C-alpha cells in the first residue's frame, strides 16, 4: 500500500504535464481576461480563429476565415533567438469565399515565432507577417484582395466545456481551454487586387483554444460547426471521429443564448451527412450538406459554395474543408448562418494535434 501512496503524487504531476513537459488543460482553471486572450506558451498548441459572413453594399455575400496557429517545437535546449525562434512555429490560414462569383481563395503562411509571427502575452493581439488580428480589428490579404474589419463583440466571452475544460477524449490530457465570442459585429472594407474598395458589414465568430493534446489516440479527425441563428442563439458542436467512422462519446454540442450565456450542453447529439461533396484535388469525400440534430432541433448546413477546401500543397500540410454555410431547419426554412470545419477526410490527423 505504501508504494501506491508514493506513486500518487507522481500520477498527479503527470496529469498536469505531458510527458515532454507541456501543460495540460486541467479542470478548475480560473479564466482571467484580457490575460487569457493572449498567448499560453506553456501549452503545445494554440489557435485564434475568426470566421464570418459579410455583405457588401450591393448585397453580395462573402465568407472569410482567418486563423493563427501557434505550435511549440519539441522541447530542446536551443530555442533560437528572440527574432527567429526555434521553439515556436506559427501557421496561418486566410480564406475568402465570394458567394456571387462562386469562388473560394485561400493562402497559407508558415513561419517561426519572432519577427515574422507572434502573439501578445495578454489580450487579443496576434500577427503573422502582414496579417494581424486584435480585439477590435482584423487585417489580412488573400490572393491580392485585402480585408480590414472593425470588430465589436456583442456578448461576453463564452467558455466551453466543464469546469473550464473542453474534453476531447477519455485520456484526461486530451483536453483544451476553449473561449469563444460567438457573435462579433463586423464592419470594414474589402479591397480588390486592382485597388477598388467596397464597404462590408456582417457577423463574425471567434474561437481561441489552447491545449497540449487535442485528439485521443484512436481519433482521426473532427467535424465542427459554429451556427449563428437568426433568433440570436448560437450553437457550437464538434464531433470527434474514430478510425471506424463512429462518433467518439467525448464529442460535444453547446447552446448559447443571445446574451452569450450557455443554456445547454450535451454529448448526445447527431451529425450526419445529407450528401457528399468530393474534392477534385484531394479526392476526399466530405459529408456536405451536414445535418446537426441536438436539443430536440435539427439544422441542415448547406455550403454557400461547394468547394471551400483548403488543400495543402506543402509536404506535411493539412488539407481540410472549412466554409461558409446557410442554415435551414428540417422544413427547409432558412434559420441562420454557420461556418463548418471538416478535418481528417483527405488524410488522418492521428498524432498531429
Amino acid at each position, binding site marked *: 500500500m505504501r508504494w501506491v501512496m508514493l506513486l500518487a503524487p507522481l500520477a498527479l504531476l503527470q496529469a498536469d504535464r505531458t510527458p515532454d513537459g507541456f501543460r495540460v488543460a486541467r479542470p478548475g482553471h480560473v479564466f482571467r481576461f484580457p490575460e487569457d486572450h493572449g498567448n499560453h506558451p506553456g501549452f503545445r498548441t494554440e489557435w485564434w480563429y475568426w470566421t464570418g459572413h459579410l455583405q457588401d453594399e450591393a448585397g453580395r455575400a462573402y465568407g472569410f476565415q482567418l486563423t493563427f496557429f501557434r505550435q511549440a517545437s519539441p522541447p530542446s535546449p536551443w530555442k533560437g533567438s528572440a527574432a527567429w525562434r*526555434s521553439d515556436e512555429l506559427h501557421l496561418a490560414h486566410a480564406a475568402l469565399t465570394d458567394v456571387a462569383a462562386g469562388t473560394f481563395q485561400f493562402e497559407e503562411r508558415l513561419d517561426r515565432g519572432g519577427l515574422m509571427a507572434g502573439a501578445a502575452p495578454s489580450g487579443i493581439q496576434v500577427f503573422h507577417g502582414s496579417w494581424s488580428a486584435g480585439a477590435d480589428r482584423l487585417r489580412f490579404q488573400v490572393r491580392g484582395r485585402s480585408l480590414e474589419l472593425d470588430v465589436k463583440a456583442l456578448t461576453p466571452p463564452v467558455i466551453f466545456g466543464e469546469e473550464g475544460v473542453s474534453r476531447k477524449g477519455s485520456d484526461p490530457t486530451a483536453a483544451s481551454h476553449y473561449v469563444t465570442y460567438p457573435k462579433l459585429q463586423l464592419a470594414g472594407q474589402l479591397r480588390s487586387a486592382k485597388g477598388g474598395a467596397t464597404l462590408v458589414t456582417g457577423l463574425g465568430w471567434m474561437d481561441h483554444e489552447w491545449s497540449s493534446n487535442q485528439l485521443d489516440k484512436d481519433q482521426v479527425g473532427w467535424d465542427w460547426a459554429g451556427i449563428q441563428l437568426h433568433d440570436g442563439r448560437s450553437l457550437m458542436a464538434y464531433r470527434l471521429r474514430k478510425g471506424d467512422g463512429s462518433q467518439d462519446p467525448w464529442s460535444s454540442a453547446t447552446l448559447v443564448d443571445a446574451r452569450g450565456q450557455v443554456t445547454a450542453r450535451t454529448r448526445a447529439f447527431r451529425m450526419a451527412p445529407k450528401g457528399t461533396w468530393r474534392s477534385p484535388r484531394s479526392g476526399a469525400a466530405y459529408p456536405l450538406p451536414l445535418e446537426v440534430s441536438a436539443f430536440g432541433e435539427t439544422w441542415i448546413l448547406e455550403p454557400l459554395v461547394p468547394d471551400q477546401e483548403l488543400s495543402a500543397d506543402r509536404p506535411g500540410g493539412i488539407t481540410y474543408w472549412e466554409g461558409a454555410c446557410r442554415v435551414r431547419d428540417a422544413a427547409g426554412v432558412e434559420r441562420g448562418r454557420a461556418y463548418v470545419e471538416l478535418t481528417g477526410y483527405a488524410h488522418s490527423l492521428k498524432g498531429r494535434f
Partner: protein
Amino acid sequence: MIWLAWRVALRALLREPGRALLTCFAVGLGVASFLSIRLANRAAVASFEQFTRGVGSGSDFIVAGEAGPLPDAVITRLLPLQDEAWTRPVIEGSFNRAGTLEPFQLLGVDLVGLGAAAGEAPAEPQAQAPLQTSDFYAGLQDPLAVFISPALARAEGLAAGSSLGGVVDERPVTLRVAGVLPEAPGGALPRTLLVMDLPAAQALLGRPGELDRVDVGLRSGAAGPALEARLRELLGPGELLELPEQRAQSGRTMSAAFRFNLGVLSLIGLAVGAYLLFQAFDAAVTRRQESWATLRAMGLAPLAIEGLVLLEAGVLGLLGSALGLLLGWGLAQGAVRAVSRTVQALYGPAAAEQAHLARPEAFLAMLVGLITCLAAAWIPARRAGQLPPVQLLSRGAQARPMAWGKVALAGLFTLFAGLALAFLPRLPPGRAWHAYLGAFAVMAGGSAASLVLIPLVGLMGRRGTWKLELALRPLQRPTGRHAWAVAALAVAVGMASGMGVMVHSFERTVTAWIGTTLRADLYVAPLGATGANSRHRLAPELPGLLAADPDVTVVDTFQLRPIRFRGQSTFLGGADMALHARHGALVMAAGGDPAQVMRDVAARDLASPAAIASETFSRRFGLQVGDLLELPSPSGPVTVFLRGIYADYGNERGSLLVDRKVLEARWGEARFASLAIYLRPGLDPGAVAAQWQKRWPGLQIRSNAGLRAQVSTVFHQTFALTYALELVGLGVAVAGLVQALLGLTLQRRGELLTLRALGATDGEIAGILLGEGLGLAAAGLAGGIGLGLVLAQILVRVLNPQVFGWTLQYAVDGPFLGILAGASLLGALIALLPASRWASRLPADRAAEEGGA
C-alpha cells in the same frame, strides 16, 4: 578525284606516320592548352558566380546594407510587401575544415520561412524542406546543425548525423550534418557550401541580430517594376536595392582581367603551333614537289592541287584537334583547381572541382584546331598549286636561301612599332588592348628579327672542327625552314622568359613591400582567414588579453568591413595610424613620406577625417591625393580627405583605410580581422607563438619570417598555372625543332651521302645533324630571351598597372633565364638525338644516287 585524294594526300600520311603523328601532336598540344584554360576558366567563374549570388538563385532583388550588416528588424519593414513578394534573410560566414583548412561558405537562412515559400518559389533548392518531421526539427533545434551540398556528401560519404570539424573565427567548432541539400535545378551546388538555420548561424558567427542581405522574390502575378518602387519606398538610409545580376556582374568584371590574361596565355601554344604547322606543311609540299609537278603536267588545275594539300591539312587538323580535346579535358581537370585557387585568393570564394566539356566548347576547340591547320597550310598549298611544273621538277630548286636580312629588318620595324603602341597611348584603368596588340606585334616582329642570329651562329662554325663547320655551314645561308624553326622557338622562349621576368618582378616587388609592411614580431589572425574575403573575425576580448601579456609591448589592431563605394563593393579598414607612423609600416605610392602621411591622418579630428587608399582602390575609382570621398555610414554619409595612396598587392577590390577611432565613431565597433604584435626586445617570437598557439588553437599565429614564407608560397601557387602553360608552349616549340631537323636532313641527304662515301661514320653524320639542330636551338633561344626581356617590359610597365593597378619594379631573374635556357637546350638535345641518329641512317634516295642536289 576521290581516288586521287586518297592516293596523293591521305596515303601519303600513312606512309609517313612519324610526320603525321608529330603534326597531330603539335596541333593537339595547341588545342589542348587553349581548351583547358577555357574550360578551367569557365568552371571557376561559374562557381564564383554561384557564390556571388548565394545559394538558391531565383530572387529578383537583393536588399543590402551600404556600410555594413543589416539589422534583423529590416524584415519587419518589408512585411507590407508580403502579398507580392517573398523574402529570404541571409547571413554569410566562413568556415574552414579542420586539418586541410578548406574554406567553406556558410549561409544562414530561415529554414522555416524557406520551406513555407516552397509554393511560390519553386526554384529554391531547399524549398522541399520536410516539415513536421523529426528531420525538420533536427535542422532547427541544434545550434550546430548544418546542411551540406550533395557533392560533399557524395565525395566523403557524409550523411545526416555525420560531423564536420573546423574553425569559425578563431574558435574550433564541430558542426553536425542535419541533412543534404537537394540538388539545385539550375546546376550543381558548390561543394563548399554550408546552409544553417538563421539564428544558429547568427549565434555561431557571433553576430546576433545581423543580416548580410535579404533576397526578395516576386510572387506569381506580381509586377517587378511596381514591387521595386515599393521596395525603394520601404528602405531606410544606408540600405540599398540591387539586382542579383548586378552582383554577379561585379564579380565577373572583377576577375575578368585575370581570366583574360590566362586566355591570352593559352593562345601561345596555339600560336607557336601555327608556326610549326606552316613549317610542316611547307616541308611536306617540298618533299613531294615531284608528285605535284607530275599532276600539274598531267593537266590537273592548280586549284585542285591546292585542294589536295588543304585536304591533307584538314585531316591532320581534325585528328590533332581530337587528340587536343582529350588532352585538353585532362589538363583542365588539373588547371581548374589552380584557376579556382587564384580566383579565390584574389576575388572571393570559388570552388570548382571539375571542368565539364560541353558540346559548344568541343566544337569551338575543333574549329580552332582545324582553322589553324588550314591557315598554316594555305601558303604551302598555294605554292604547290602555282609553281610551274618545270621549276618544280628541276632538281636543286629546293631549299633556296631566303632573304633573311629583309625579313629581319621588317621584324625589327614591327617590334619597335609594337613597343610604341604599348607604351605611348594612355588609356583609362582596366583597358589594355593597346598593350596586348603591342605585345603581339613585338612577338611577331621579334621572332622575325631573331633570324639575324641564324647566320651569326653559322659563322661561329668557321673556327671549329670540320664537323662543326659542316654542321653550322647551312646556317650561314638559312633557308625558310631554318627561319621557321628559329622563329617558333623564339616565340615560345620569348613568352616563357617574358612571363618569367614579369613574375620575378612581381615577386621582388611584393617581397620588398612585405619587408617594409611587415615589421611586427607576430601576426595573429583566425585560423581560416585566407584572404580579404574571409569573414572570420577575432574575438572582441582577444586584443585586450594579448595586450595584458607582459611579453607584449604593442598590439596593433586591424579592422576590415565590407562597404559600398560608388555602387561597388570594396573594403573600409581601420588601423591605428599614430602607431603606424611610429613603426612605419606602409609603402606609399603617392602622398609623400609614409610616417608624415600617417601622422596627418591620425591628427585629423572626427569632423574632418582623412583616409589612405590602396593603389588598386585609387585606380579602380580614379582617385588622387587631395580628393574628397563621400562614404556611406550607418549615421549618414561621411566625407573623408584622401591623404595618401599606399601600395597593396593583396586584394584586387582595393581598400580604404581610416584611423581606428574614426571607424569606431562613425561605423561602430567592428571585430578585428587581424592583429600585429610587437614583443619585448630579446624574446623569441617562435617560443611566444608556440605558447599562444596551445592556448588558442583556432588562431593562426605567425612569426614575421613565417608570414613572409607563406606569402611567397601563395605567390608561387598563384603562378603555377602560368608555368604549366609555358611548358606546353616550349614543348610544342621543341617538337617543331625536331620536325625542322628532319626536314633539313632530307634536304641534306645528298651531302650526307657524299660524306659517308668519304668515310664519315654514322655517328659523325649524326653529330653533324645534331650540331645543326642545336645551332638552330641556340639561335632561337638567344632570340627568345632577348624578346622575353622586351616583352616583360610591356607586361611589367604597362599591362599590370593598367589591368590590376599594381606598380611593379622591373627585375630580371637571371637564374630563371639560365634554367629556361638550359632546359630548352636539354629538351632540344634529348629530342634531336634520336632524330639525328635516325636521319644519319637514311637510305640513299634516288635523287642523290643520280648525283643531284
